[in-house]
Every structure is written in structure tokens, then in C-alpha cells.
């Protein structure tokens, strides 16, 4: 045995000497068995002191050689600021009971009501393992966990890919399942029940759960020496508690469009009639995502388009492009542009009309309304002499929406109905190996 090993080593040394190379196997092993890290610090800030988020993320990858890889991703977010509640603006100040049911918050006349009691810290950890299964197959499996004050997510996923045509074509199939627990601050409100005075928790219920099943079929195709294309079909089925427990609808006068007034006991409660939203307890989404990368010599163009449709009546299109342009040998600049548009959910209502029969489902959440969004940004990257890379990205995100004309009643027309959103995204990244 020992002789065999010695003989093999001698043979390897002799072969290497003949080829004029140093012992290559060990060098390659050392190269492969390294950790690589991708880190990022992000600031996301909306105008008008709405949501502010500072987020730190670390993605670590350990290469065990032979295409076996372990990936770990840790993210921490701290969120503060105000979020649009769904209630309509008015010519008078509005008072609401906070989600906890212990205090009130107010919105001045003419302003879109924002709930400013919003504060959260989120931690997310994802891990996955990828390895070849047979000569042309790759399998991967992962687990994910995230936690917030009022929300816990637990998920698992698995995928299988097979290469064809000299590895120019890859077909893949993936499945993911998650179970989320929702523990709304102050309890989950009874759907379409009225906001009550401070201390009155009769319409608040217990925690709830949500399950999501995702399926993904993908084709990746090398089209030419400079071009690669990917097309995915995705299917997603959510069931359980899909409401946003903090979103409201104003109940308005059918003639004037003003919110129906109300006098709170001792002044500690809402001064108008507001109902908590109700969404269906299931949602099925389907999507097609197509992506292309093409190298024009050194610059690389990335272009993607996504179409999604769901049984809530929301269709969306997303077009995104990036152009990575090398500047000198060690730098690149990458302009980025994204356009998004969506139609409103069937049950989107900017407000509910007093005296009319309540619909089965209703939400005034602006994210379920009709809007367009544009993101314009630029990323700059620099490779250091040691081979690491730092980057800085600055983006501007703008949403502008419309309330359907037939939902606007009289005086509402003169007021801001859809709170347009402007946000700055600044990100600093550093990639290094150990």
C-alpha cells in the first residue's frame, strides 16, 4: 500500500516534471476550498418620513470542490417610520386607535393618513446545499427562517437541474413550501369590523398562519458565444391569513365622499368610521420570467421581463435592464433601469360607502391598487489589487398610482387619494474571500 502510494507520488512528480508544472492537484484543492463572502449595507428611505430601513446582509459560500457548495445568507433589518393605512384624506384632522389598542395617533387635515406606530426588526437566515447528483444532474436543497416582532417565517426548498446539448441547455424544476405565523400587534382584527376606542379589544382575535407553495420550471439556454437566456414559469399558491392586519378602509358619505364622523368615548378613539380590511384566504399567482445576458465585447447587457397574473385580478409587467460598462482594468459602472406596472385587485376599494351592503372582500391597501413604478440607478464597482471587490449603488424608486375614477366620490376628487411614494436606495457592498 505504502509502496503504491510512493509509486503514485513518484509517477505524479515525474509527470509534472515532464509537463513543467508544479504539483497542481493540491493547489487546485486549496483554491476551491475557500470561503467567499458577499456583504452589503443598505439604506432605504421613503420621503415624508415614511418607511426607513437600514439593512445589513452577509452571503457566505463555501466551495467544497467537485461543484459541491454550501451557501448561507444572513440579513438583519431595522425598520421605522410611517406607513399609509388605507384611510382616505379629509379636510379635517383624523384620529385613529393604534394597532395595539392602547393609544391614538392623528393625521392633520388634507394629509393621507399614515400609521406612525410602525417599528420592527427583522432577522432572516437562509442556507442551501448544492451538489451534482449524476453526470448531468445538479440537486440543491435549502432552509429559510425569518423573524419579526409580529411575523415568523419557516420555509424549505429543493430543486433539480439537468444539462443537455453539451451543457448548452439546462432544464430545472424547483419546489418550495413555507409556513408563516402572524401575530399582529394587539391581535388580528375581525375582518370588516369597525375600529374601536382605546382599550376596547372586542374585535381582536388570536394569531393566525399562512402557507405558501411555490413551483418553478426553468430553461437556461446558451444562444451563442456571447449570449445566454433563461425563461422561468412560476406558480405560487398562498392560503390562510392573507390580510394586512393594520390596513383600514374609510366609510364615506355617498353624496359628499367625506368619512362618516364619530364621537369617541372620552376622546380616546377614532373620530370617524373605519373598517379593517378583508382579503380572500387563498391566492394563486402564475408568472413568466425571461432574462438575457449579452456581452458586447467587454460591456455586458442584462435585460429581463416578467409577467405575472393572479386570481385576485392583479396583472403586472416588469421590465428591467442593466448595462455593466468597464472603466479601465479594475472598475465598472452599471446604469440600471426598472419599470413596473400593475392593475388593481378586484376587491380594491379606496373607501366603502355608508348605507351600501358590505362587499365580501375589500382592501384599500395601495399595494393592491393600480400603479406604475420606476427605478433609476447606478452601480459603481472597483476591484482591489488583492482581488476583492467593493461597490456602491444609488437608486431612486418612484411609485405613482390612480384610484379608479368610478370610486371617487364628489369632494374626494380635490384631495390626494393615492399617496405617491418616493424612495432612495443606497447600498454599499464588499466581496472578499478567505
Amino acid at each position, binding site marked *: 500500500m505504502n509502496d503504491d502510494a510512493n509509486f503514485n507520488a513518484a509517477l505524479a512528480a515525474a509527470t509534472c516534471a515532464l509537463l513543467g508544472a508544479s504539483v497542481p492537484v493540491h493547489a487546485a484543492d486549496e483554491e476551491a476550498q475557500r470561503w467567499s463572502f*458577499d456583504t452589503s449595507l*443598505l439604506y432605504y428611505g421613503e420621503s415624508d418620513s415614511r418607511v426607513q430601513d437600514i*439593512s445589513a*446582509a452577509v*452571503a457566505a459560500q463555501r466551495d467544497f470542490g467537485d461543484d459541491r457548495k454550501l451557501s448561507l*445568507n444572513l*440579513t438583519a433589518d431595522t425598520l421605522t417610520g410611517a406607513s399609509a393605512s388605507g384611510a382616505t384624506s379629509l379636510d379635517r384632522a383624523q384620529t385613529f386607535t393604534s394597532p395595539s389598542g392602547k393609544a391614538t395617533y392623528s393625521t392633520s387635515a388634507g394629509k393621507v393618513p399614515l400609521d406612525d406606530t*410602525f417599528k*420592527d426588526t427583522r432577522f*432572516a437566515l*437562509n442556507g442551501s446545499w448544492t451538489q451534482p447528483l449524476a453526470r448531468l444532474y445538479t440537486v440543491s436543497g*435549502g432552509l*429559510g*427562517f*425569518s423573524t*419579526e416582532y409580529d*411575523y415568523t*417565517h419557516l420555509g424549505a426548498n429543493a*430543486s433539480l437541474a439537468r444539462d*443537455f*446539448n*453539451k451543457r*448548452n*441547455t439546462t*432544464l430545472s424544476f*424547483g419546489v418550495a413550501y*413555507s409556513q*408563516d405565523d402572524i401575530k399582529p400587534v394587539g391581535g388580528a382584527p375581525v375582518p370588516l369590523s369597525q375600529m374601536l376606542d382605546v382599550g376596547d379589544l372586542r374585535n381582536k382575535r388570536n394569531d393566525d398562519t*399562512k402557507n*405558501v407553495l411555490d413551483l418553478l420550471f426553468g430553461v437556461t439556454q*446558451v444562444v*451563442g*458565444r*456571447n449570449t445566454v437566456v433563461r425563461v*422561468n414559469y*412560476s406558480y*405560487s399558491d398562498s392560503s390562510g391569513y392573507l390580510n394586512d392586519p393594520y390596513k383600514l378602509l374609510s366609510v364615506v358619505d355617498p353624496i359628499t365622499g367625506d368619512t362618516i364622523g364619530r364621537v369617541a368615548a372620552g376622546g380616546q378613539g377614532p373620530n370617524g368610521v373605519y373598517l379593517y380590511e378583508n382579503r380572500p384566504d387563498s391566492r394563486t*399567482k402564475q*408568472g413568466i*420570467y425571461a*432574462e438575457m445576458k449579452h*456581452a458586447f465585447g467587454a460591456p*455586458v447587457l442584462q435585460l429581463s421581463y*416578467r409577467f*405575472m397574473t393572479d386570481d*385576485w385580478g*392583479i396583472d*403586472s409587467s416588469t421590465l428591467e435592464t442593466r448595462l455593466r460598462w468597464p472603466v479601465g482594468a479594475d472598475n*465598472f459602472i452599471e446604469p440600471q433601469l426598472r419599470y*413596473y406596472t*400593475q392593475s388593481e385587485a378586484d376587491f380594491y376599494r379606496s373607501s366603502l360607502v355608508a348605507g351600501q351592503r358590505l362587499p365580501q372582500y375589500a382592501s384599500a391597501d395601495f*399595494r*393592491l391598487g393600480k400603479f406604475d*413604478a420606476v427605478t433609476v440607478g447606478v*452601480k459603481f464597482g472597483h476591484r482591489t489589487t488583492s482581488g476583492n471587490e467593493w461597490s456602491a*449603488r444609488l437608486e431612486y*424608486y418612484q411609485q405613482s398610482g390612480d384610484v379608479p375614477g368610478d370610486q371617487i366620490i364628489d369632494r374626494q376628487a380635490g384631495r390626494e387619494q393615492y399617496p405617491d*411614494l418616493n424612495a432612495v436606495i443606497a*447600498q454599499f*457592498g464588499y466581496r472578499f474571500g478567505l
Partner: protein
Amino acid sequence: MKYLLAAAALLILSGCSSIGVQPWERDVLARPEMSLDANALDAAIDDHIYFSKEASSGGRGFGGGGCGCN
């Protein structure tokens, strides 16, 4: 559905068999920035932002997990 998927897969495979490159023509495709997952962390961050601000999400791959995102 099963047959439809099988037929689609077959069509893609037969259609794709004539396009592509030889193994020694992969110099450009091997550049790190040509990988479709070259900026996985940026993509995960973007997905998380848009997930919390828009009604549609996902489609590219499996995202980094759920969120209350109010």
C-alpha cells in the same frame, strides 16, 4: 398538464439542440459577470424591497423568505 409540459420540454430540447457553443467557445460565458446569478445578493435585496412595496413578487427563483412587510 403533464403531457403538455412533456411536449413543451421536448420541443425546447429539440429546438435548442442546434444552438449553443462548443466547450472551447465558452471564454466569454465563463466571465463571472456573464453568470445569470452574478449578483445574487443584489437580486435578493431588490426582491425583498419590491416584495414589500408591490403586489407581484418572485419569478426569478426562490426568494429569501417571508416577511410581514407592512
